């Protein structure tokens, strides 16, 4: 038996996008075991519900993560609305989903870029991030912010997008789609990309079930689950929604699922822009969350299912707010994919779950 060595990997490491620490037990170049450790960037954001009232807290929720920023403000708002029985106007629900799907596009493009960077395809990386810029420009034009949008609030959205602007968004996305087609072909067909991804970090459907993997990571192993299927909010009005699934369960399948989800998100936005009803965009809020009342909600973030819990105590401050993020679900699966892989594939395998440690630690 080869001698075992333990290599500490991260939390600060040039190839890791996120502050995750791994103790890698190696036999020669092969990883026998990976022991993950998180907790380096805990900020105590959930506790801030005691300091910021429930309407202000949406600003804190938005700052949980820099990539799914809008998603977290949306998830928080939906939970508090469920807690207080607030009905959100239809137009606001549509606008929320449009922004949320735009976030998904920019998150996936960011990830695809990082992936290309991880296997050393700098050109592809730059092109992904160049396209992502279109989405950030849409954000800036519609909300004023590029990353932190401050567009969602309890009871609706902060600002409207005029119909002319919506048509403009669709035009930009259509233009982007043509360019994105070339990137998609590269990701799915290029020999150099395939040689780095096919068969790397394999996870079977049974294992994905066993480790309760969520989001594109789970869907790449054949788990047909997507919270958007439940039709919360404006998702219910989509004529047809099929989650993007692949059966292969390797790094290639994960990039394929995310790459195709970008096209799916563009379709969703186009359909909602066609169907968006006119009307008010917010609901006045008069009361505060009742004592002892609690609510849960779920949302499909770009990285997978995110679960929210909120409990009221009869004042304008919430008693408790809790999030379970997709990355905390996926770490178990990731650790499994690391077992038996080469040391050189570790960064790639960590990346293929699209880890977001800042969400996970809050």
């Amino acid at each position: 038996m080869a001698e075992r060595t333990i290599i500490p990997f991260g939390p600060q490491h040039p190839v890791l996008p996120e502050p995750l620490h791994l103790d890698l037990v190696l036999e020669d170049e092969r990883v026998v075991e990976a022991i993950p450790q998180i907790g380096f960037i805990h900020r105590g954001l959930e506790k801030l519900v005691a300091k910021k009232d429930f309407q202000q807290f949406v600003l804190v929720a938005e700052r949980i993560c820099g990539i799914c920023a809008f998603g977290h403000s949306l998830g928080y708002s939906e939970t508090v609305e469920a807690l207080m029985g607030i009905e959100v106007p239809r137009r606001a629900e549509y606008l929320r989903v449009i922004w949320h799907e735009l976030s998904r596009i920019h998150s996936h493009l960011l990830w695809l870029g990082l992936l290309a960077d991880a296997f050393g395809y700098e050109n592809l990386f730059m092109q992904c991030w160049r396209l992502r810029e279109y989405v950030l420009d849409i954000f800036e034009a519609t909300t004023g912010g590029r990353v932190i949008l401050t567009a969602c609030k309890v009871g609706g959205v902060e600002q409207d997008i005029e119909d002319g602007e919506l048509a403009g968004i669709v035009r930009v996305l259509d233009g982007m789609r043509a360019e994105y087609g070339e990137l998609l072909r590269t990701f799915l067909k290029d020999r150099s990309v395939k040689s780095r991804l096919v068969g790397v970090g394999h996870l079977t459907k049974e294992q994905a079930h066993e480790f309760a993997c969520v989001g594109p990571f789970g869907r790449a192993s054949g788990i047909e689950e997507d919270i958007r299927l439940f039709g919360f909010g404006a998702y219910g009005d989509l004529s047809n929604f099929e989650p993007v699934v692949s059966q292969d369960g390797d790094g290639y399948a994960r990039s394929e699922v995310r790459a195709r989800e970008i096209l799916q998100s563009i379709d969703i936005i186009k359909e909602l822009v066609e169907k968006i009803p006119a009307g008010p965009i917010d609901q006045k809020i008069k009361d505060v969350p009742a004592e002892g009342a609690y609510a849960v909600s779920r949302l499909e973030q770009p990285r997978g299912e995110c679960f929210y819990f909120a409990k009221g105590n009869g004042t304008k401050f919430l008693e408790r707010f809790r999030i379970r993020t997709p990355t905390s679900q996926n770490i178990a699966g990731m650790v499994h994919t690391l077992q038996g892989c080469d040391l050189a594939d570790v960064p790639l395998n960590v990346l293929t779950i699209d880890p977001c440690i800042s969400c996970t630690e809050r």
Partner: protein
Amino acid sequence: MGSFHLAKMSLRNAFKKPATKMYPVVAPTFTSRSKGHVANDIENCIFCGLCQRRCPTHAISVNKDETSWAIDRFSCIQCLSCVRICPKKCLSMAPQYTLPATEKSTETFYKPEQAAMSPVNTERPE
């Protein structure tokens, strides 16, 4: 299969202008909604203090007696809460970002007629 799927795009790129801007030689473009800093049209302000109470980061302090309105630009998170609540609509979001500085400071605005009498410096610290 096959390689060089990105070749066409790369070649096109070689003859195009860069996608990035040469800041600061080229000025950044802002949209009408861009969030840079909070501006106060102090002549219309009635010093009601609503903005101060609403601000989640306690960046604003309003003094009714001195008729002054001060903002700590380094605490402000550009959330627009103050702009939305202001009853006189004298607050607005202006596009230019706050300039970097070596220390934190607040910027104070005084009502103009008060400024003439007040011995306190009304100029923005350079």
